[in-house]
């Protein structure tokens, strides 16, 4: 066969095409995919969000009832005083909305108690400062914690403008009734930070968070980026405010006042 420039270029083109295809074919045939997948029943969202209707849910007793359910579900220890660990709690108007203080506020609004929890911000400052990536933002917008990786430096607690994180100063199991544990969920250990996780373990099974389920309609939960979700429906119809909007973390817990 005569070797001229034309045949050489043809051969080179075929070889180049082969090289381009080969690596992909090798990867496809080796079965290099993850053996884990998302639960079939799991709920999906782009950004989970919650609306708290403070016209319905505003007494300390009612909020404490929800907190008890939350804390029982997640084996959150009960510790009195400064070393307290909390996932869901309540506080006054002045502490909840310090930027929206107003000396002539409706008395009734001023005297309500406000349910507080992790805001699962769209732009979470805690995630930015965590040196070990123990706290991170999931694809569905939940700000989650990997307690295996937390070194207890508490940068996230300093960064969180809402005080949503608690540090386990002592052995958290000492603050638990060991006969009434939820055996489906772990406890935490000494020296890690913990917080509300929007019930990721329940969402993975297609259930609403425990507090939403127990709230009798005072809490709405859903995808912030789905116009048909219960959260968006409420946000469309009612006037809502968020905590400390000026710090720019874009909290995803909204309050109907």
């Amino acid at each position: 066969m005569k070797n001229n420039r034309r045949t050489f270029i043809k051969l080179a083109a075929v070889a180049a095409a082969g090289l381009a295809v080969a690596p992909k074919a090798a990867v496809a045939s080796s079965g290099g995919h993850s053996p884990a997948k998302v639960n079939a029943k799991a709920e999906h969202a782009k950004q989970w969000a919650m609306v708290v209707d403070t016209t319905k849910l505003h007494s300390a007793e009612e909020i404490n009832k929800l907190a008890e359910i939350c804390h029982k579900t997640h084996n959150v220890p009960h510790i009195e005083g400064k070393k307290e660990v909390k996932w869901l709690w309540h506080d006054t108007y002045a502490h909840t909305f310090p930027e929206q203080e107003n000396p002539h506020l409706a008395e009734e609004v001023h005297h309500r108690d406000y349910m507080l929890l992790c805001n699962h911000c769209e732009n979470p400052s805690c995630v930015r400062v965590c040196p070990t990536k123990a706290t991170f933002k999931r694809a569905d917008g939940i700000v989650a914690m990997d307690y295996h990786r937390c070194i207890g430096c508490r940068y996230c607690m300093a960064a969180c403008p809402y005080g949503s994180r608690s540090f386990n100063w002592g052995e958290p199991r000492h603050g638990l009734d060991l006969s009434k544990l939820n055996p489906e969920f772990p406890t935490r250990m000494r020296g890690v930070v913990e917080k509300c996780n929007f019930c990721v373990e329940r969402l993975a099974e297609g259930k609403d968070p425990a507090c939403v389920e127990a709230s009798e309609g005072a809490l709405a939960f859903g995808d912030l980026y789905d116009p048909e979700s219960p959260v968006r429906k409420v946000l469309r119809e009612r006037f809502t405010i968020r905590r400390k909007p000026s710090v720019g973390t874009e909290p995803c817990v909204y309050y109907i006042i």
Partner: protein
Amino acid sequence: MRMHYGFPIMAGLVIFIGLLCAPFALGTAVTKEYKQPEVKLPAGEKECVESTQFMRENHMQLLNEWRDYALRDGKRTYVNHQGKEFTISLQRTCMKCHNSKADFCDKCHNDAGVTPYCWDCHIQPEGLK
């Protein structure tokens, strides 16, 4: 040539070497053959998530991957080599069959001298005391 303090030195050496070899000559600590611990296997179930050999050799890697799948990737269903599906959870899957930490996990871990910190947070099926 004469050795100073020859007798005490020799006697000391003999005693020292004797003590050094004593475990081999007398004791059973060194010569006894290692016996594998007898773990208590689940009564109802025959097959684990993967084969026995795989689990024996790789359960630590598997559990390590599981925790990242579930917690960080949000993937809570595991598909094994046979294509069977399992919920990724130490407490709700593993410990449902292996319903005794003392009779299963601890047996080997004690022999191997390892103390994994799983149980600092996870609740063993026996409950906490």
